[in-house]
């Protein structure tokens, strides 16, 4: 894959910082004292049992969830920037409209049409691009959501359970894309309840169950 970002990513210094954050759900603190940074080349794999707050950590890092205490900072070339400049998020709810086709949705979200060429061939999205989202299977729809993430061309990828619903080939393609992204100056944080040891090589594991 040849991203335009590859060059851009190398030149930029950026940092995502969680400083002593606490996360509340329904008024109850579920996680506290969470600190981490994501810099170019960083790869963090968040794990832990159901309900431990993996998704919340990702939403926090995306600047969508406000921390109960502590702070989340987005920094590029030593200046504070909005989260939208650095981060893309793949969450459970993909926000794709059932009545639109993937091509139409991608036009809204992607930086440019060239991004279609940057997508993993194994995702087979070219064949699906003119089909309404509602006619796609769960795995195909997931691939479209991942494609949007790759296409939105941000340096930091946050992926919440990205492997669910994907077949073996698409998983390989996704992990290859993540590795490529990190090697070219990107950063990623993945959250899954189970860490597949074979494909998580190179990631630093953050076990939220143990941290609690």
């Amino acid at each position: 894959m040849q991203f335009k970002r590859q060059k851009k990513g190398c030149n930029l210094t950026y940092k995502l910082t969680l400083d002593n954050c606490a996360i509340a759900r329904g008024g109850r603190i579920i996680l506290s004292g969470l600190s981490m940074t994501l810099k170019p080349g960083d790869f963090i794999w968040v794990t832990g049992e159901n309900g431990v707050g993996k998704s919340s950590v990702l939403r926090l890092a995306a600047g969508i969830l406000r921390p109960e205490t502590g702070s989340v900072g987005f920094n590029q070339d030593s200046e504070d920037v909005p989260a939208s400049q650095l981060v893309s998020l793949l969450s459970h709810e993909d926000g794709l409209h059932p009545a639109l086709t993937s091509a139409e949705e991608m036009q809204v979200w992607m930086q440019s049409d060239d991004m279609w060429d940057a997508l993993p061939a194994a995702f087979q999205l070219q064949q699906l691009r003119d089909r309404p989202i509602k006619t796609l299977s769960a795995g195909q729809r997931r691939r479209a959501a991942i494609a949007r993430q790759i296409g939105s061309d941000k340096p930091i990828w946050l992926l919440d359970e990205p492997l669910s619903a994907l077949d073996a080939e698409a998983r390989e393609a996704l992990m290859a894309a993540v590795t490529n992204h990190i090697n070219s100056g990107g950063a990623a944080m993945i959250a899954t309840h189970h860490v597949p040891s074979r494909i998580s090589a190179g990631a630093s594991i953050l076990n939220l169950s143990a941290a609690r």
Partner: protein
Amino acid sequence: MSLLSRELLLTRRLAGSWVFALVFFALFASICAIALGGSRAVMAPIAPALLWIALILSVLLATGGSWQASLPDGYLEQLRLSGRSFAGFALSKALAMALTIIVPLLIAAFPVAIAFGQSAQAALGLTLSLVLGSPAILAYALLAGAATLRLSQGGMVIILISLPFLVPTLMFGLSFSQAYERYGFNADGLALMGVSLISVAAAIPAVAAILQATMEDG
């Protein structure tokens, strides 16, 4: 593709909505005509009031629920992360609704007014009052729709919230339309425009704030 073209595409594809509004408008007028016995002498004096009520109900019913229809879960997060403002999104949505739902209703209003025994001049004044007042109706419909986004029984609540806010619009609209036949464009028209502008100016940031809060609540 801009957010506006996405919204326009959605309103077109989820067809129903504008056809539904137009059919409701026509049916409401017909039912009133039947209930009043079809006599023009009876219908003519109250035609402005009937058409105003028909427009308000059509717009509230057709646009109030449009957030639910066009906002799949997770959309607001992606919108935020794409760097777009919620206010811009709310404005795109409002424009798309105005173009696809309200414009057809306003076009239909003139012939309906004539059918209700209005003179051409009176029908023009009535239509003009609806044109000037419709932004306010849309603004409150979208605001109430956003506020009830997470309620499963939003539809009825939208009407309950919006109707009280629309009383000034209705009063200025009716008095403008009644005075138009004799005096032409009058001061009530300016007041009506003022009410519409204030409603839109207040509703767009309010909708954006509600969407922001909705997103943060997950």
